């Protein structure tokens, strides 16, 4: 027993000592500014369409600085050639976002004096934004940096670099006019050692202007590799706070999940006061933050998992075959029905809680899940029957319950919620409104 005890004690001690790491902080890559523009990438969106080892990765941009300063460096598992890179359609990502966003559902109570029917209406989209990236180039072999390929796609100039050691890569990038964030050197090394390549993109201003684009369009890359991962670590170099990453995984099999962090469902199916309808995005933000904090800030949240063929209720129409193809789905055949399962994962990460890159796996889990919040409008007409009086009494209890649910989900003050709930419920139309048309 002794050695066992010693081993366990040792393990626990190591874990305890090592786990308190210093802070530093984004996403797949880091922004590399050529000027001192204040850059930050707070939210990113990535679409991963994967079947077997084949992957099409789409990275969306929410880059807000000057386009000429945009540069992106992303570790990629293999050397990519020109025909493996494509510029995607930003609307597709918006559509995916809208389709999979957490939603509000509202129901209207029937007249308790006259039992039948209810109707439902759907949908309010959540809030997410895209993320972005970039890089630049010339080669000097004495630095151990090789330009594996160099090409232009759309408005982007792209280089695929391989390197022997991180100092060389850092020097190379600096010499070629890329401002590398402090501390990036150390982070480049693990990727170099794992024999990964670096995808470096920057904007070709002439083409960008000639194209008349308003924003940077998403970059797509197709490759084949058993690595099913997203390198988030590099992106944490120049981010200062918590960062949001929305990953849409499209698979022919079923749900995707993260293998090295817990994947947790967002709270769902809660009945909340009707006033939330007007402040749904505030509600969702607060609720997400609460759930995130409660889980120790170290889990990935599943916001949506559904077969792409349907939705209930729909916050947007499902993507059609053409749109799916644009989103990277490459396994569709015209003769067969679309077999695409979408998983929307929302990861809010910081350097200290997410030390390791995200590793994924696809599973055959076809259980459907959606973040869904329910509003139940009380019946507002006149009720003269006994059942009506009972219904009205029950309403107070229901409002209180809804208020408490909301307070629990969002950590908003219960007094404030009660105030708002009362305001809303007293706003029901006066009885005479219903007499004359």
């Amino acid at each position, binding site marked *: 027993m002794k050695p066992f005890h010693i081993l366990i004690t040792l393990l626990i001690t190591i874990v305890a000592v090592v786990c308190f790491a210093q802070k530093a902080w984004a996403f797949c890559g880091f922004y590399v500014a050529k000027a001192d523009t204040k850059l930050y990438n707070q939210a990113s969106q990535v679409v991963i369409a994967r079947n077997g080892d084949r992957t099409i990765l789409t990275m969306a941009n929410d880059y807000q600085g000057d386009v000429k300063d945009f540069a992106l460096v992303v570790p990629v598992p293999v050397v990519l050639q020109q025909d493996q890179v494509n510029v995607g359609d930003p609307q597709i990502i918006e559509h995916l976002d809208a389709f999979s966003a957490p939603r509000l559902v509202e129901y209207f109570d029937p007249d308790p004096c006259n039992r039948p029917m209810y109707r439902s209406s759907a949908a309010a989209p959540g809030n997410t934004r895209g993320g972005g990236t970039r890089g630049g180039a010339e080669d000097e072999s004495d630095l151990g940096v090789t330009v594996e390929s160099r090409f232009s796609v759309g408005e982007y100039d792209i280089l695929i670099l391989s390197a022997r050691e991180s100092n060389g890569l850092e020097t190379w990038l600096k010499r070629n006019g890329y401002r590398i964030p402090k501390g990036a050197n150390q982070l480049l090394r693990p990727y170099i050692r794992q024999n990964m390549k670096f995808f470096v993109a920057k904007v070709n201003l002439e083409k960008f202007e000639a194209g008349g684009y308003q924003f940077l369009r998403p970059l797509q890359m197709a490759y084949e590799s058993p690595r099913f991962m997203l390198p988030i670590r590099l992106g944490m170099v120049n981010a200062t706070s918590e960062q949001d990453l929305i990953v849409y995984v499209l698979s022919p099999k079923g749900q995707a999940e993260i293998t090295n962090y817990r994947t947790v469902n967002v709270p769902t199916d809660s009945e909340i006061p009707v006033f939330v309808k007007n402040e749904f995005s505030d509600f969702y933000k607060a609720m997400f933050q609460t759930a995130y904090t409660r889980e120790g800030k170290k*889990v990935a949240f599943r916001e949506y998992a559904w077969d792409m063929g349907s939705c209930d209720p729909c916050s947007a129409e499902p993507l059609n075959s053409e749109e799916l193809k644009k989103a990277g789905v490459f396994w569709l055949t015209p003769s067969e029905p679309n077999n695409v399962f979408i998983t929307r994962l929302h990861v809010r990460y910081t350097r200290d809680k997410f030390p390791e890159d995200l590793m994924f796996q696809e599973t055959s889990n076809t259980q459907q899940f959606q973040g869904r919040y329910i509003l139940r409008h009380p019946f507002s007409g006149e009720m003269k029957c006994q059942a009506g009086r009972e219904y009205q009494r029950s309403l107070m209890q229901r409002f209180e319950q809804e208020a408490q649910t909301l307070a629990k989900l969002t950590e908003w003050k219960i007094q404030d919620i009660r105030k708002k709930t009362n305001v809303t419920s007293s706003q029901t139309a006066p009885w005479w409104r219903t007499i004359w048309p």
Partner: protein
Amino acid sequence: MKVIRALRWAMLRQDPRNYQILFLSLFLLLGIGTRDWTLRPDLILVVMVTCLLTQWVAVSIWSNPKEKILDSLTKKQTCNTELESNLASSPKLLSLKSAMITALGLSLLLRADHYTTMMLAGSLAILSKFLFQVERKHFFNPANFGIIAALIFTGDAWVSPGQWGDDGWYALLFAGTGGLVLKRVGRWDTTATFLGAYALLEAIRNIWLGWTWDVYCHRLMSGSLLLFALFMITDPRSIPNARISRLLWAGSIAVVTFILRNQFFVSTAVFWALFALSPLSVLLDYIWSAPRFSWLSPPPNVDRCSVENKAADTESEQYSKV
């Protein structure tokens, strides 16, 4: 009678399988309660019923020759040790404990969409004990066999390595409860070797890659890895008998796991490693075996009581882990 009852109670408490069942049930409840796994109670029920039924049927069919010896001896009542004869009279019931442990292990680890997958996993897990035997010792860990069978033969099974997360108190809980069982089973060396070797390999990789140590820590703190190390590879029924063999064996599993995980990016690396190396225990037992095997084939000239005692020992060691 009182003494016998007390003895029996003491023996039941001695049976590490009881602890196993208790702890695994606790983990299952914890998982459902605090880790919001989307576990389906119906699937848990299905796998339990399948495992218990298969065990019952299989024990009936492959009635152990040793038990026959035992039965014939007890019938003659030449020994007055009521305790052993009592225990030996219900070997089937006792062996159900092992099946229960396998079922709990499968419920904890394996996920599936359909009943049939769970039934396949449960029945093959138990049958593997009877089908893959050398010298009447099965060499596949039943739950591990069930998991691999489900992964290979069905399209809808999966394992969620991230389901426990990396909370420190889970590590403590697993280590504590695992330690309790290992103390009784005497197989802590296997866990220590596996974890030690794996931790060492990951440490070397971490240094070579230049990752910070929190990456290392995060990789090792995985609840699933600890659960595997403490509750699965320590199954005394299927792992090598001699300590030296166990050390070699556990070390090899660590190496294979490391390679599968880091070179081939297999998220279920530990299960494949254990599965692939299970047959190695036969070879290892062959090389370093002699004293350990004494209870498997009782020497011919031993008096009946000692045979009976040995048989009872054999049965009480029929615990089979996760």
